[in-house]
């Protein structure tokens, strides 16, 4: 695994505009960054990332089976009581899910270590599945990458295929919903809707704020149609505590991601996985946080935290890092395994699972050890040639 500088495609901004990728620059700061890419060998991809991703995914699903059978584990994960039966039922019925992203610390010199599972509202999807793919095709065509370069990225194919597989299990009308004023989230659901349409599924989009409730407790769209299935790019735990949350279990509304995903997007899954698979090469030691000072060599994360918010890190050398954010409540501790710097940048590997299959990666790079929403997306390639050839 190496970080290699490469000239940008001169027309990438126009290409971004052409495909509706409007958030490549966020608050004047670059988000899409193709001034460099990460090069992997095929063995690194298949042996160190793809196969651990599928193994961990299977372990996580097994863990769901255990959690839904245990009131005590539900309690430990701080799942609100009124939603527990509904969540368990959604698992027993195997309500279809679409996707998830595992975040790994990986530098090519040892096993990838799982930081967390983003199994409810993973984003950076369009950039990984489509724009990164287009970057590779363009740079190959321009002769800027070694001939035969590839990419671990069949994400879009897998999405269309997964939608096709679950199509008959999706209640209609089917809507994709996200926060109205978030360009990034709106871009992500526009992309997912595009994939669903390609699978032949009729569907629409809706702002999450526009969802209505009827007298008899069913969820409606702007035309008072009762929504059959809602893909919500919005955290389940937030839905639970908002005004309409209590209607969910009896509304008949189908959700994607389904309610049982609340158990996997919860960082409490990390100590549970560690307990069940102690010493697994891709897991970091983890435990539920009982309060008190954070010892050296540990990281504290809230059960519900996104985008690297509210993380406390106590490094082995005594340094302490802390990020701000809106999250509080119960926490877990995870052994500190800092990201490795590449030319002063800290890459985090997001490994995608679509329809239960590992199908690609996207890399977010931050200038800090904690990957936050300011992290830039940097493309990658699989290259097998000798190093000398690579330096253009």
């Amino acid at each position, binding site marked *: 695994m190496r970080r290699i500088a490469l000239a940008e495609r001169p027309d990438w901004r126009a290409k971004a505009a052409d*495909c509706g990728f409007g958030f490549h620059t966020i608050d004047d700061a670059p988000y899409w960054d193709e001034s460099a890419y990460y090069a992997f060998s*095929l063995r690194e991809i298949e042996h160190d990332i793809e196969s651990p991703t599928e193994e961990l995914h299977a372990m996580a699903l097994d863990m769901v089976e255990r959690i839904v059978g245990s009131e005590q584990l539900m309690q430990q994960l701080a799942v609100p009581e009124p939603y527990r039966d509904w969540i368990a039922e959604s698992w027993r019925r195997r309500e279809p899910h679409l996707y998830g992203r595992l975040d790994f610390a990986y530098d090519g010199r040892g096993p990838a270590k799982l930081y967390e599972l983003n199994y*409810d*509202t*993973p*984003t*950076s999807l369009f950039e990984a*599945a*489509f724009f990164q793919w287009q970057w590779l095709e363009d740079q190959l065509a321009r002769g800027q990458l070694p001939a035969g370069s*590839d*990419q*671990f*990225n*069949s*994400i*879009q*194919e897998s999405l269309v295929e997964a939608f096709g597989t679950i199509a008959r299990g999706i209640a209609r*009308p089917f809507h994709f919903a996200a*926060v*109205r004023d*978030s360009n*990034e*989230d709106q871009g992500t659901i*526009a*992309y997912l*809707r*595009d994939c669903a*349409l*390609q699978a032949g599924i009729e569907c629409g989009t809706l*702002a*999450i*704020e*526009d*969802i*209505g*409730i*009827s*007298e008899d407790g*069913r969820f*409606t769209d*702007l*035309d*008072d*149609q*009762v929504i059959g299935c809602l893909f919500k790019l*919005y*955290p389940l735990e*937030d839905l639970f505590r*908002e*005004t*309409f*949350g209590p209607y969910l279990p009896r509304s008949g509304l189908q959700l994607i991601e389904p309610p049982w995903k609340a158990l996997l997007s919860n960082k409490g899954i990390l100590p549970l996985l560690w307990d069940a698979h102690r010493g697994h090469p891709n897991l970091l030691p983890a435990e539920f946080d009982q309060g008190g000072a954070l010892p050296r060599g540990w990281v504290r994360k809230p059960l519900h935290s*996104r*985008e690297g*918010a509210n993380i406390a890190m106590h490094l082995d050398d005594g340094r302490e890092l802390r990020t701000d*954010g*809106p999250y509080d409540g119960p926490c877990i501790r995870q052994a500190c395994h800092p990201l490795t710097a590449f030319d002063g940048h800290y890459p985090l590997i997001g490994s995608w699972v679509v329809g239960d299959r590992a199908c*690609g990666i996207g890399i977010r790079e931050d200038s800090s050890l904690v990957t936050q*929403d300011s992290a830039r997306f940097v493309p990658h390639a*699989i290259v097998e040639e000798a190093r000398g050839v690579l330096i253009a």
Partner: protein
Amino acid sequence: MKRSRTAALLLMGTAPLLLTACDRNEAREGLYTSVEACVAQTNDSSTCNQAFAKAEQEAVATAPRFANREECEASYGKEKCAERSDGNNHSFFGPLMTGFFLSQMMRNGVAANGFNSAPAFRDSNGGWQRPAAGGASGGVYRGGTAGTGMVPINATPNRAVTTSRSGFGRSSGSRGFGS
């Protein structure tokens, strides 16, 4: 190969691959419970507003009439009726308009000038109806026979009157995008 063989976009790209479906002359009809819902569907706020105003105006004249509130509520539901007067000091009861019907001709995917609109009422069984075309109006009581002069609207059965919105989305300001 570890990557998608091809990756194309249908709607997000600039090429309007799906617009051919609209390239026909046909009527676009809709039943809406608010101007907002109409605009969301048609993207035509001027027509939606006009249609709503026209329907509202016609609602009093064309709605079924009942001699008393109880009879009206039996057909249209509790608190769904209002007392009205026909201008000759005759007072009666009629259902409140709960939606409006809009129909437009489409030419090459664009709405042609002009539209038809009508008030819509929802009976206590949840069915939608509108006054029959050229529906009689006037000072004739139609007490007890609610629905006279009314025709059902073939609204999608899976429809429910929304009582409130904005019950989701409050937490959005507190987080960055996705995860």
